[in-house]
């Protein structure tokens, strides 16, 4: 945690945020089982507050890309604002498609396999990111709007493009969770990045949340 961030965010606030994330991701796991026919397990999220400038390095360390992992990115906005990043390890993209085993339902033949695969990634990304961000928002009594997800095909060694809409001097909260598709033996991780603008609001929302328990 860098200096500036610790000034903005107290240990107590971090604890509250951690518990909200535990609840949110737990709720998301439970509800995902209802939405998709497969048991998706989300680990307890790890929360880190880091400077935006460090983010590309953090991502490089975390993603450990060997050039083949698939990344789905989706922006969300509202009081709670940021990006969701879903990272599948190399090679799992194709196996993942089996999870959406109704691809034949895409009622148009001649859709290229690559397009289908990308579509599958986008759909899973949209649902997982929506589930996690949605549950956090719900607990914090707000709601967010989403932009369409996209499969990132930027240079894997360079994550700078991810932070283009962030001010480099600001801080970001990174929430990282590992998800596992139980029966399919596929796992990857999900990052939710929120920027500085949201931190002020988030602090207020955390206190309001705890306020209902005092």
């Amino acid at each position, binding site marked *: 945690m860098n200096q500036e961030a610790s000034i903005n965010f107290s240990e107590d606030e971090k604890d509250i945020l951690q518990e909200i994330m535990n609840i949110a991701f737990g709720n998301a796991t439970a509800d995902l089982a209802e939405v998709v026919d497969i048991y998706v397990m989300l680990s307890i999220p790890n929360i880190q507050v880091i400077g935006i400038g460090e983010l590309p390095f953090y991502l490089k360390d975390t993603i450990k890309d060997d050039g083949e992992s698939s990344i789905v990115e989706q922006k969300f906005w509202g009081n709670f604002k940021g990006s969701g990043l879903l990272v599948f390890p190399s090679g799992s993209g194709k196996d993942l498609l089996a999870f959406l085993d109704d691809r034949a*339902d895409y009622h148009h033949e001649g859709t290229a396999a690559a397009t289908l695969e990308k579509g599958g990634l*986008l*759909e899973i990304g*949209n649902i997982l990111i929506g589930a996690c961000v*949605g549950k956090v928002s719900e607990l914090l009594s707000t709601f967010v709007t989403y932009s*369409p997800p996209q499969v990132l095909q930027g240079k894997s060694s360079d994550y700078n493009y991810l932070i283009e809409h962030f001010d480099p001097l600001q801080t970001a909260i990174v929430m990282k969770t590992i998800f596992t598709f139980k029966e399919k033996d596929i796992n990857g991780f999900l990052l939710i990045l929120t920027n500085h603008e949201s931190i002020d609001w988030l602090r207020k929302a955390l206190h309001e949340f705890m306020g209902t328990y005092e």
Partner: protein
Amino acid sequence: MIFSQMFDMLDVGIVILDSELNVFKWNRWMATHSKLPPEKIVGKSLFEFYPDLNTPWFLRNCKSVFTFGNFAFFSQKLHKYCFPFKAYNTLGSDFEFMQQSCTVGPLRDENNRITYIYITVQDVTEVAAYENKLITMNTRDGLTGIFNRRYLEAKLKEEFDRHIRYNRPLSLIMLDIDHFKKINDTHGHQAGDFILKSLATTIDERIRAVDIVARYGGEEFCVLLPETTSESALALAEFLRMGIEAEIYHFKDKSIKITISQGVSDLSDGVDSAEALLKKADDGLYESKRLGRNKVSMISNKKKVQ
């Protein structure tokens, strides 16, 4: 009052569904394009009118919006359309149905509970047609109409990776018109162009739909053969060689005969990249030229076959 007018004035389809996926609202745009007035569909299940939407992916996405309050996006690229509406022929497109980009989102009541979801439908036929044109321009060779070198190289990489992963046979033929310069010099460039076009057609007619024929350079062509052993590729090359040797091309009042030299390659002998596959075919082609042209060769462990 003004806000409710928006609902019908927008050039976007808007549908509101309840939690049972019954139609709650159906705006004028939807009524116009579907030819279903609101009074016919409101209160009824959406699937009664659009049974094709009753699929796991549609249900899953609607459920997700109800549960998490997220959005679902049905892109034109993947889904083409959600509602089968007739397309207006813009830009000379040959789409039978209107291409659509659809978004599903949540609507909350005063207690913040998601009680309805909306679907917006945007007509993107024109964009899709334009995109198709661009794709054609980008992947096809302007003169012959077959694929260009850029497309071949991309496909070659893709197919190479796929075949290696699943351990499947993959072959490539590289071919070149013998003494093409002489045709140009004797009959003129127009005749040369005509030969290139005709040869492209001749090859295209003799290969499977999954095979990819591309113009690789001036008078050089490549045929990429997925799921094909070198034996089959050599047989096809021989079939092409004989067919073209026997063909007489008529340009204006001239009769032109051509022959081709070919090189065949497959994934054996340490071919560990798409480039190596190309190189091996090119080596075969060179060998055919060296042996006097109108030949098929495959360099295998530095030994030639045939």
